[in-house]
């Protein structure tokens, strides 16, 4: 850990804005790439190529992009990246579509719900620590904050984990309120299901994070990551593996991803809670789902896969003294996030949707007892070590 640098209020606020911009850039680079990867990975898993063109048109922007991507695709390396312009099409569609508000809808809540969903997803990044200490030092010529370290954590507060869990649970209000305000039966059913499901899965999700907290004895994100990666006793390693699987399962349910995508059951409820939404408001829900995926990947990566330290599950303590590999690096963390996002898509390509009672049974009958046992075992390990 570097020695803390004294900053004036102006300097620290400018630094906070810079870090927020960096986090938002990170989100808006990772999320479209995830949307693109989703098409490609599911395609590959189903023996297809995935997206290779925008539309079957010869004219206009899409035709131009199609034609040139295919011509360049004759170079073998580029052929995989055909279909990348589809992202441009996606975003253009979201912006250009008409934003319809149903006449009987509760207008204020209807308009506020997607923003709530989106804000709850983005704000969480304030407490996530990508790397201990400084990522890099800003150059001297930079106005106001020149020469100061650019920290890997925006605000590494003492109750970081509590903050993350609290804000993340606000996200469900976006879904339920949006569904309620639509004044339509399918969104309402989707919203109610989503409310019950997410409230159920909050319990095992929080309890599965309680085991690492018991092991580390802190709620600070950075310290928690460091203790779990390099300072836990080797006895805790099997606990971490089981806890990781449980947390990932609950994470799928929290982000409404496919084995648990009850809120938007396409074959029963049209599109679930966002049936009545269109244009950029639908886009907010869509982006919030993917940002939540990134958040869950961040938490799983940080607490169970070692975060910026290379080896997962606390195995890193055995190689912590090795010169280069033993040091923490934000790159490892980003690679772990990318891997976990790939796992999200991989599971979506594999497992069909559960029935509603099965989802509830998994949460209440299996995951909650499992996590309670995990917490007790974590206490025993902490006591023994």
């Amino acid at each position, binding site marked *: 850990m570097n020695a803390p640098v004294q900053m004036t209020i102006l300097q620290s606020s400018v630094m906070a804005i810079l870090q927020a911009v960096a986090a938002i850039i990170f989100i808006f680079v990772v999320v479209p790439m995830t949307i693109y990867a989703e098409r490609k990975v599911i395609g*590959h898993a189903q*023996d297809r*190529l995935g997206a*290779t063109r925008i539309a079957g048109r010869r004219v206009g922007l899409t*035709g131009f992009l*199609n034609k040139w991507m295919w011509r360049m695709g004759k170079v*073998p390396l580029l052929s995989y990246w055909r279909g990348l312009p589809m992202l441009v099409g996606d975003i253009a569609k979201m912006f250009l579509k008409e934003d319809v508000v149903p006449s009987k809808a509760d207008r204020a809540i209807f308009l506020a719900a997607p923003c709530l969903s989106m804000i709850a997803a983005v704000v969480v990044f304030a407490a996530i620590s990508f790397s201990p200490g400084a990522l890099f030092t800003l150059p001297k010529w930079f106005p106001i904050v020149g020469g100061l370290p650019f920290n890997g954590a925006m605000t590494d507060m003492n109750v970081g984990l509590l903050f993350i869990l609290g804000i993340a649970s606000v996200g469900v209000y976006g879904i339920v309120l949006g569904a309620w305000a639509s004044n339509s039966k399918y969104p309402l059913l989707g919203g109610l299901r989503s409310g019950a499901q997410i409230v159920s899965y909050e319990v095992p999700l929080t309890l599965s994070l309680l085991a690492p907290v018991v092991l580390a004895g802190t709620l600070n994100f950075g310290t928690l990551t460091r203790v779990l990666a390099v300072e836990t006793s080797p006895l805790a390693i099997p606990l971490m593996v089981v806890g990781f699987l449980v947390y990932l399962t609950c994470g799928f349910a929290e982000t409404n991803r496919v084995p648990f995508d009850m809120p938007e059951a396409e074959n029963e409820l049209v599109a679930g809670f966002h049936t009545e939404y269109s244009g950029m408001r639908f886009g907010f829900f869509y982006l919030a789902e993917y940002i939540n995926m990134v958040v869950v990947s961040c938490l799983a990566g940080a607490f169970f896969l070692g975060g910026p330290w290379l080896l997962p599950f606390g195995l890193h303590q055995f190689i912590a003294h090795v010169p280069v590999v033993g040091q923490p690096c934000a790159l490892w963390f980003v690679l772990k996030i990318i891997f976990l996002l790939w796992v999200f898509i*991989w599971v979506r*390509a*594999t497992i069909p949707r559960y029935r509603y009672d099965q989802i509830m049974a998994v949460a209440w009958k299996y995951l909650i007892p499992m996590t309670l046992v995990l917490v007790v075992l974590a206490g025993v390990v902490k006591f023994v070590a």
Partner: protein
Amino acid sequence: MKKILRTLIPIDIAKGLKVTGTYFFKVFLTANRAKKRPHGTQEYPEVPVKLAPRFRGRLTMLKDEQGEIKCVCCLACEKICPTQVITIESGKKEGRKTKIPTRYDFEMERCIFCEFCVESCGFDSIILNHQFELAAYDREDFSIGMLGKEHNMFETTPVGKFSYSDED
């Protein structure tokens, strides 16, 4: 007890993940190679399609080595055709023992591509070729006879320029 264990240890999910993961890496690692392509899709307008040997395309008449029409006007194809798209008129030709068609009309707009005509033919004088790009701008282009330069029974239908891959 067995059921609880099966639920707690997700072995079935692991099996499914193994299958999709294997397919993912098989396609991902070979997607950029020109020769080895295990994936099932064909990139149609840009890359020529590989068709199955028994693909049923457009009806075509065959000629023998001397350039003579092989058809002997037995009318088997005309009789068996479910949608009655074939019309044959027979005539005679100097130095040929069997009859020769003076008119063989094929109305492709009603054809259902069932291949009964080819199966009923005892002289192997008609086949369905491997052509499937049969769209045309004129309705007359689907009436195919023995005369005419482009739309006739002996050659494949000229392909219109529909996709940008045809431009070059």
